[in-house]
C-alpha cells in the first residue's frame, strides 16, 4: 500500500455469541476480511451504549460496525432489538451532526456466517474509502490559526 493513502479505521462491536464467532470463523477459514476493522467483543449488541459509537467516531474511527445475532436468535432474547432501536437513533443523530449515516452500520451476522462477515467488512472499507476520512478531532485550518493567535497573545 502506498504511504499517504487513506486507510479507513473501522471499529466493530461484535456480539460474542454470533458476530464475533462469525468473524473468528472467517479468520480460521482464511476468508479474507478487511484488515481495517478492529474488533471489540461484547456479550450482546444490547450492551452497546450509543456513547461507545460516538466515542469511537470522536477518537479517530472513520466508521463503526455493530453486528449481532439475527432478530429472534439473540442469546439474551431481546438484546438485539434494543440495539436495532439504538442504531436507528444513532444514525439519525450522527446525520444531524453532519456525519454520513453510512459510517454507522448495523448487521445481523450469525456464528456460521463467516462469508457475510468478510463481505460486510470489505464493503464497509470500500464505502469509507469513498467517503474519505472522518477526521473528527483534527483541527480545522481556522482552529489552528486561532490557536496560534491566542498563544501569541498570551505570551
Amino acid at each position: 500500500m502506498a504511504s499517504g493513502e487513506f486507510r479507513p479505521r473501522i471499529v466493530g462491536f461484535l456480539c460474542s455469541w454470533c458476530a464475533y464467532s462469525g468473524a473468528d470463523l472467517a479468520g480460521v477459514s482464511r476468508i479474507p476480511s478487511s484488515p481495517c476493522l478492529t474488533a471489540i467483543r461484547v456479550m450482546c449488541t444490547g450492551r452497546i451504549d450509543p456513547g461507545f459509537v460516538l466515542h469511537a467516531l470522536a477518537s479517530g474511527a472513520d466508521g463503526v460496525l455493530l453486528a449481532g445475532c439475527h432478530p429472534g436468535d439473540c442469546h439474551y432474547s431481546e438484546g438485539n432489538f434494543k440495539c436495532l432501536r439504538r442504531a436507528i437513533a444513532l444514525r439519525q443523530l450522527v446525520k444531524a451532526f453532519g456525519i454520513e449515516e453510512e459510517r454507522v452500520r448495523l448487521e445481523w451476522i450469525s456464528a456460521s456466517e463467516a462469508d457475510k462477515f468478510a463481505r460486510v467488512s470489505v464493503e464497509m472499507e470500500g464505502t469509507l474509502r469513498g467517503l474519505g476520512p472522518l477526521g473528527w478531532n483534527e483541527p480545522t485550518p481556522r482552529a489552528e490559526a486561532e490557536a496560534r493567535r491566542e498563544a501569541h497573545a498570551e505570551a
Partner: protein
Amino acid sequence: MPKPRLALYWAASCGGCEIAILDLHEKVLEVEANFEIVFWPVALDVKYADVEAMAPGSIDLCLFNGAIRTSENEHLARVLRERARTLVAFGSCAHEGCIPALANATSREAIFRAVYHDSPSTANPDGVEPQTVAMLSEGIEVALPEFWEEVKTLDQIVDVDYYVPGCPPQAHRIWEVVEAVLSGGPLPPKGSVIGAGQETCCEECPRTREEKRIRQFLRPHQVIADPSRCLLDQGLVCLGPATRSGCGALCPQAGMPCRGCYGPPPQVRDQGAKMISALASVIDSTDEQEIQKILDGIVDPVGTFYRFSLGHSMLRRVR
C-alpha cells in the same frame, strides 16, 4: 483572621447565574459579610488590569460563569485560573456550554452572515462587519475581542476544580456550596460536581411512572398532558432519565418536560448518547421501519439531546 477572597466573573453568559445568587435573598448579605469580594466586574469597580495585577493564588475562590466564546472570555479564564486557588465552573455555560454552545451546531460565518447581513431588519449595503481591529474616523485604532470558531467550556481552556451545574444553579444549591466552603471542612475530591444531587431528575419528580411503551413522540404544544403521569410515558421527550438531580424537577412539575440543564447524571460521559439509549429501550416496536417512523417524531436530535451539553459532548460540534 482575614475573610476569604472571592471573585465572580461572567464570560459568554446571560447573567442568570448572578441573578441566581441574588435569589439567595437575605442570605446574600451573609455572603458579603463572610467574604471579601475582590473582583466582580458587573458589580464592583475593579478593572481587568487590577485583577491582572493580583498575585497568583491570591484569590481563594473564583466562581466563573459563562462559556468561552471570545478571546476576552479565554483571557480572563487564564488570568483567573492563575490567581485563584479554587476555580469553580459555575452554571451550565461554564460547565458544559449551555445555550451559547448551540452555536457549535452552526458556524462563526453563519452567525456573522445572519446577524450582520441576512437579518431582514439590518441595512448594511457595504457589508460592514465588526472587526478585531477597526479604525475610527479620528484615526485611532480600537480592538474588539476575537470571536472564536467554536464555543468552549471552561475546562477545555483551563484546569477546573469544581462544577456547579444548572441553568441557573438553584439558589438553595448555591447556598449549600457557600456553606460548605465557609464551614472549613474537607471538600469533595477535585473535579467533583457539587451543589447538585447524585441521581437523576426522575428521582425528584413526583409524577407516577408506569412501564413505558412508546408508540409515538409528541411535541409539547401538540398535547395537553396528564399532570400526574410521567411525561415520557405520555410520549413527550423528557430528559429526566439522563439529567442529574438537584433542581427538584421544577419543569415537569410546571407541566413541561425536562430539557437537561443540570447536565448528565454521575458517571455519564455524554448526556445525549445516554438519552437516546434510554429512549431506544422504551420504544414499543421491533420493526425497523416502524421504529424509524417513531424516531422521526424527534425533530431536532442535536438541539433536543444536547440542548445544554453540546460543549461537553463527545462530538462537541456539528459539521
